[in-house]
C-alpha cells in the first residue's frame, strides 16, 4: 500500500484567524499534516499554541468570530472519494454529514461538554438519529452496546442518568461512547485527559487505544502533556504560536528533536523526571533536629459529613521540603489550609516551633499568637490570578504584609524593590497591576509576598500546576534558590509526582484524607510500599516512547472497594 492510500485526513497550509479590534489574530498559521488510518497523531504544544483551534478547524467548529482563512482539509474516504472540508459551508448539510459520522470529536471538560439536563442515553443516541434516523428502540440498543464498549458499569441504569451523576472518568467514557456512535473513521480528542487524575487518565488512554484498535480509527490527539504523547503517539506535531515547529515519528521527536523549541520543550520535561541538581549538591539535613512543624492526628470533617482530613500526622524538619501528593479530592489542599488555620481542624495538634524554641499549637492558638505565627509560616497559592487583588499595584500587593507589620516610608520601598529583584521581577514594574503580568510572573509576585516577612516555612499549594511545563521548572528552581538563601522549609502540595520528585526531600502520599505513605522521596518513588502509591506512580505517563508503561500499570483495587 502506498502512503497516499493510507492517509485519511490531509491538512494543507491551514490558516484560522480571529478578527479583533486591533487586527487579525492568526490562531492557526499555515499548519500542514497528514493523519493515516489506524494511527495516532499527537498535536502537542503549550497553552496558546493553536492546537485546539487546529482540531476544531477540521470540523469547522471554531468559536465565533474565528474563521478559516486558507488551506485545505482533505478527507479521503475508504471508497476513495475525497472532500475538502475547509471549503464547505460551516452551517451546511455536507459538513454536518461529516461531523460525528466520519469524524467525531471528544473534548477536555466532559462535564461542561455534555448537557447537564439531558440523559446521557439521549445524548449518545442523538448522533444516530441525526445521521441514520435510527428508531428509538434501536437507538437504545446501540447506546447500551456503546456503553458496554466504553466499560461503563451497569449500562442499563446508566443510560438514563445525567452527567453530574458520573465521576470525571465515567463522563469522559460517555463522551467517547458518543463519539463512537456512528463508527467514525477519525477521532479527534482535544485534551481528553487534562482534567482527569493520572490514574483515571491512564484508564482513558487505555480505552482510547483499545477502541482505536478495534475500530480501526485514526486518532488526532491534542495534548500539552509530553508524557501522554510519549505513551500513545505514532506521529507527533509540535506547535508553537499557531505554527508547526516540528513534525515526525514520536521516536525522533523525543530522542532526536531537530527544532530548538522542541528541544527546549522536551528538555524541560525530561528535567522534571529526576531530582533537581541543586538538591544533589545539598547536604542532607542533619538528623535528629527537632521538627519545625509537628502535625499529629489532625482531622477535619466538613458539615456535609465528608472527612476531608482524616487523622493526619506528619513532620517538617527545618530546611526541608516536604511534598504532599495526592489526586483531586484527597484532602491535600484542605490539610494545607488547616496548617494555617484557614480552616479549623476539629481534632489533633499542629505544633509549630518558634525561633525561640517555644512550641505553639496552631490549631488552638489565640488570635495574637496566630498572627505572629502567620508571619513566620506563609502560603503560596495555586491560582496566580485569584490570589492577587486585581485592584492593587504589584508594589502594594508585596508591601501589604510589610505595612501591616509596621514598615513604612523609604524602608518599605527599598524592601519591596529588593523582594522583586529576589524573585526575578524588575523593581520598576512596581506600579503595574497584576493584569499586566504573565502567569509565571504573577506566581513570582505571590512568592515575593510570601517571603516578604522572612518566613521560616512556606506552604505552597499546587504552586506550579497552573503553569506550562517550561515555566514549571523555572519556578521550582526559584523556590529552591530562595530555600537556600533564606533557610526556608516547604510544605509542597501537588498532584504532580514529577515536581515533588524534583524538589522535595520527603513525600507524604494522601489518599481520601489519610496519609498512606511517608518517606524519603527517592525511596517512595523507587520502592513504593502502599498499593495506592504504586498505582499512582505507575499511572504517570513517562516521557519516553521507548518505555511505554502505563498499559502495564499497577491498579489499586481498593479504589472501588473502600
Amino acid at each position, binding site marked *: 500500500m502506498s502512503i497516499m492510500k493510507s492517509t485519511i485526513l490531509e491538512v494543507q497550509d491551514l490558516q484560522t484567524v480571529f478578527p479583533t479590534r486591533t487586527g487579525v489574530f492568526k490562531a492557526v498559521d499555515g499548519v500542514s499534516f497528514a493523519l493515516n488510518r489506524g494511527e495516532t497523531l499527537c498535536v502537542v504544544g503549550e497553552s496558546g499554541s493553536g492546537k485546539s483551534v487546529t482540531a476544531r478547524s477540521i470540523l469547522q467548529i471554531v468559536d465565533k468570530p474565528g474563521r478559516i482563512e486558507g488551506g485545505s482539509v482533505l478527507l479521503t474516504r475508504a471508497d476513495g472519494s475525497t472532500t475538502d472540508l475547509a471549503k464547505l459551508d460551516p*452551517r451546511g448539510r455536507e459538513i454536518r*454529514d461529516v461531523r460525528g459520522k466520519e469524524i467525531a470529536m471528544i*473534548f477536555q471538560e466532559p462535564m461542561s461538554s455534555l448537557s447537564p*439536563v439531558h440523559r446521557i442515553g439521549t445524548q449518545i443516541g*442523538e*448522533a444516530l438519529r441525526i445521521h441514520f434516523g435510527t428508531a428509538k428502540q434501536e437507538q437504545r440498543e446501540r447506546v447500551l452496546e456503546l456503553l458496554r464498549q466504553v466499560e461503563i458499569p451497569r449500562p442499563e441504569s446508566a443510560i438514563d442518568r*445525567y452527567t*453530574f*451523576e458520573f465521576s470525571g472518568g465515567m463522563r469522559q467514557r460517555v463522551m467517547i461512547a458518543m463519539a463512537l456512535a456512528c463508527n467514525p473513521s477519525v477521532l479527534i480528542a482535544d485534551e481528553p485527559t487534562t482534567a482527569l487524575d493520572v490514574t483515571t487518565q491512564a484508564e482513558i488512554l487505555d480505552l482510547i487505544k483499545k477502541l482505536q484498535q478495534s475500530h480501526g480509527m485514526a486518532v488526532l490527539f491534542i495534548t500539552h502533556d509530553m508524557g501522554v504523547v510519549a505513551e500513545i503517539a505514532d506521529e507527533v506535531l509540535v506547535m508553537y504560536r499557531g505554527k508547526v515547529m516540528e513534525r515526525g515519528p514520536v521516536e525522533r521527536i523525543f530522542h532526536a528533536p531537530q527544532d530548538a523549541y522542541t528541544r527546549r520543550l522536551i528538555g524541560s520535561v525530561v528535567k522534571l523526571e529526576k531530582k533537581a541538581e541543586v538538591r544533589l549538591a545539598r547536604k542532607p539535613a542533619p538528623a535528629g533536629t527537632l521538627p519545625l512543624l509537628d502535625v499529629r492526628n489532625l482531622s477535619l470533617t466538613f458539615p456535609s459529613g465528608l472527612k476531608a482530613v482524616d487523622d493526619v500526622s506528619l513532620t517538617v524538619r527545618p530546611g526541608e521540603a516536604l511534598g504532599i501528593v495526592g489526586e483531586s479530592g484527597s484532602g491535600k489542599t484542605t490539610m494545607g489550609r488547616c496548617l494555617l488555620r484557614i480552616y479549623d481542624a476539629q481534632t489533633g495538634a499542629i505544633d509549630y516551633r518558634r525561633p525561640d524554641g517555644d512550641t505553639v499549637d496552631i490549631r488552638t492558638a489565640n488570635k495574637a499568637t496566630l498572627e505572629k505565627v502567620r508571619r513566620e509560616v506563609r502560603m503560596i497559592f495555586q491560582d496566580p490570578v485569584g490570589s492577587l487583588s486585581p485592584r492593587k499595584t504589584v508594589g502594594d500587593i508585596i508591601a501589604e504584609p510589610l505595612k501591616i507589620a509596621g514598615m513604612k516610608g523609604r524602608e518599605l520601598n527599598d524592601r519591596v524593590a529588593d523582594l522583586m529583584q529576589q524573585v526575578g521581577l524588575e523593581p520598576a514594574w512596581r506600579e503595574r497591576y497584576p493584569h499586566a503580568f504573565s502567569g509565571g510572573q504573577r506566581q513570582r509576585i505571590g512568592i515575593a509576598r510570601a517571603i516578604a516577612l522572612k518566613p521560616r516555612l512556606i506552604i505552597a499549594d499546587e504552586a506550579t500546576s497552573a503553569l506550562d511545563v517550561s515555566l514549571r521548572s523555572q519556578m521550582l528552581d526559584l523556590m529552591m534558590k530562595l530555600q537556600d538563601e533564606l533557610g526556608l522549609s516547604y510544605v509542597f502540595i501537588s498532584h504532580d509526582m514529577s515536581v515533588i520528585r524534583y524538589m522535595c526531600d520527603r513525600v507524604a502520599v494522601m489518599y481520601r484524607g489519610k496519609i498512606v505513605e511517608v518517606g524519603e522521596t527517592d525511596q517512595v518513588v523507587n520502592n513504593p510500599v502502599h498499593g495506592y502509591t504504586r498505582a499512582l506512580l505507575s499511572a504517570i505517563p513517562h516521557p519516553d516512547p521507548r518505555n511505554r508503561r502505563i498499559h502495564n500499570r499497577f491498579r489499586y483495587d481498593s479504589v472501588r472497594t473502600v
Partner: protein
Amino acid sequence: MIRFIAKRLVFAIPTLFAVSIIAFIIIQLPPGDYLTTLMADWASQGGAVEAGTVAAMRDRYGLDQPIYVQYFKWITGILMRGDFGISFDFGKPVTELIWNRLGFSLLLSVLTLCFVWAIAIPIGILSAVRQYSISDYTATFLAFFFLAVPDFLMALSAMYIMSAWFGQSVGGLFSPDYVDAPWGFGKLFDFAQHVWLPVVVIGLGSLAALVRIMRANLLDELSKPYVTTARAKGMSELELLLRYPVRLALNPLISTLGWILPAVISGEIIVSVVMSLPTTGPLLLRSLLAQDMYLAGSLILLISVLTIIGTLISDILLAITDPRIRLQ
C-alpha cells in the same frame, strides 16, 4: 422530588404567617378606621351620623379592641373555619367577595405571563443569536421603552386609542351582553376580545426583564462547550439552538417566575383600576382607601399567598426541568 416539595412547603409556612402579620399591619397603618369612611359617606348624602350609632358599630365590628386581639380573631377565623371576616363596606363575608375576583386576577396574571414569555423568549433568542445586530438593538430598545412607560399611562392611552380610533368597547372583561351569561363559546370569544388589551399593557412592562434575562442566559449558554459537542455531532444549527442552549437558558427564566409574579400582580392592580377590570386590584384599592380592614387584609394576604405559591410552582417546575436541582 416529594421530599423537595415538602421541604419547600414547610419553608413557606413561616413566610405565610409573617405575610399575614404584615398584611394586618399595613391595613392598620393609616389613621382612623372604616367608620370614619362611613361617616364621610353618610355626610355626603345629607345624613349626619350620630355618635351613638358609630360607637355601637365600632363595638359590633370589634374595632375598639387592641390590634393583636383583632389579628388573633382574624387569623384563627381563617385557619379554623376559612372565615376571612366580613367586609364592612359590602356588609358581606369577605369570602363571598373575593374568590371570583382572585380567579380573574389569577387568570389575567397567568395570561400575562404566558404572553410575556411567548414574546420574550423568541425576542431574547433573536437578540442573543444576532448579538449587536440591528434587530438586537431594536428589541432591546423597545423592551426598555415599554419598561420606561408607566403602566397606567399606557393603559389609558391604549384605551383611548382603541376606543376613539378603532371604536372598540374598552374597559371590563366582557360586553354587557355577556357579563352574566354562562360560559360558552360566545362568552369566551367576547372575553378574548376584551382581555388582550390589559394583558398586553401589563405584559409589556415586564417584557424588558425577561428579554434581557433570556438574552443573557442564552449568550451564556451559547458559549458553553456542550454546544460545540452537539455541533460536532453534526446537528443542524436550528435544532442545536433549540435543543441545547435555549432549553438550558429557559431554566433561569423559570426561576424568575417567583419575582416576576409580584411585578405582574402590582401592574395588574394599577391597570385593572384604569381599565375597570373585575379583578382584585380595584377592590383592594377601594378597601384600602375605605379602610375596610378585613377585606383589604385578606386580599393582601391572598395575593401574597398566590405569589408564594407562584414561587413554589417555579421551584417545582425548575426541579422538573432541571435534574441537577431535583437529584442533588
